[in-house]
């Protein structure tokens, strides 16, 4: 009986949590209208969410592309199919690695920072201060952060994939001696802009939406203590990563037949 009650309580807590997150999302979406009047707020958030994340995305993209090329060459050369190396690198980057790895890095770099910032604002009663001045913190603080994350993610994913392809090209063509013409021609023949590129961009839009939503909600919902903020930051990274990996499977199953 005791166990049953605990299970029930757990479910009710989970559903209540989800409901609060959904309500907050609705308020954030509603608050987007104010950004038209204050584009400056969005600009500042694009700086801290987007620009400051570029470095880790660029370096990771370059190295993931280089490793893909190195490993792919090792396997493909056993079948004398090195000419397909470019296709393999580009397809895996555009379809999966670009959106997913970018989202995971984004959750670690930008998501956690968002949660910590908002959580600390709450702990130091800055959010209550805003309310006292009749400024809605959801519109003023959360809405621009959410939109910035949503917009930054596809750009970051595109940077990741593009640098990955260039890194792969550097290793494949520059170091391992795959023919330059073959690399690009095979890639253009096999990679479809609609099937591969557009689906990858859709994926990163979805991930951007979910990751920033989780980050903003965890910050806004955190306990206003140092332990509470630290726990919320951890939850952001864990929940975002799990959501990205789970959603990626669903999206892949729906998109690529």
């Amino acid at each position: 009986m005791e166990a049953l009650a605990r299970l029930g309580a757990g479910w009710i807590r989970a559903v209540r949590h989800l409901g609060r997150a959904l309500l907050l999302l609705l308020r954030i979406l509603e608050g987007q209208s104010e950004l038209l009047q204050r584009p400056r707020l969005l600009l500042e958030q694009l700086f801290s969410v987007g620009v400051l994340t570029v470095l880790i995305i660029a370096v990771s993209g370059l190295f993931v592309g280089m490793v893909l090329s190195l490993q792919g060459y090792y396997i493909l050369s056993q079948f004398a199919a090195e000419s397909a190396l470019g296709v393999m690198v580009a397809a895996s980057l555009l379809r999966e690695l670009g959106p997913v790895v970018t989202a995971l890095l984004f959750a670690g770099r930008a998501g956690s920072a968002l949660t910590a910032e908002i959580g600390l604002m709450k702990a130091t009663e800055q959010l209550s201060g805003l309310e006292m001045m009749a400024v809605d913190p959801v519109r003023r603080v959360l809405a621009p952060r959410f939109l910035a994350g949503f917009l930054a993610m596809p750009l970051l994913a595109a940077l990741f994939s593009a640098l990955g392809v260039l890194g792969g090209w550097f290793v494949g063509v520059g170091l391992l001696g795959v023919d330059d013409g073959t690399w690009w021609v095979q890639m253009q023949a096999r990679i479809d802009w609609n099937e591969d590129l557009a689906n990858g961009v859709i994926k990163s839009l979805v991930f951007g939406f979910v990751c920033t939503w989780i980050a903003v909600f965890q910050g806004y919902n955190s306990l206003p203590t140092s332990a509470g903020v630290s726990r919320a930051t951890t939850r952001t990274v864990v929940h975002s990563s799990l959501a990205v990996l789970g959603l990626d499977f669903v999206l892949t199953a729906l998109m690529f037949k």
Partner: protein
Amino acid sequence: MKTGKTVEITVGAFVAAGLLALFFLAMKVSNLGTLDTSDTYEVVAHFDNIGSLKVKAPVTMAGVELGRVASIGFDQERYQAVVKLAIYKRFDRIPDDTYAKILTAGLLGEQYVGLDPGGSETYLKEGSEIEITQSAMVLEEVIGQFIFGKAREESK
């Protein structure tokens, strides 16, 4: 926080770099840059067996791509595959007694439609049919014929 101008410049550079990356992926990596968007006309060809021909497979003559396979259907009256070929409008002087066959690029490569020109003075146009076709080579049938032929040789 940095000063206003720096923020604006770096955000601008970030957005520009992201869009540039997307453009690079679209034009250089995917087929958007090489996509032939010119108008096409459709001709029909019936085949006894199309093997593993797929929609969007190239249609070539003398090794040059003239079009793509637009659709593949099945004719219930003749029990044949109906392949519609979309041919670019600028190739408007293909004789109407042209011979279509399904070929394979390399031993295990993709299948495509090859056209051999006939000698007719009238040309293919929207909706016309290619009368003379040759099926795809199916590896099992070729091997079967080879073994059958060997067996008959030995029994003589």
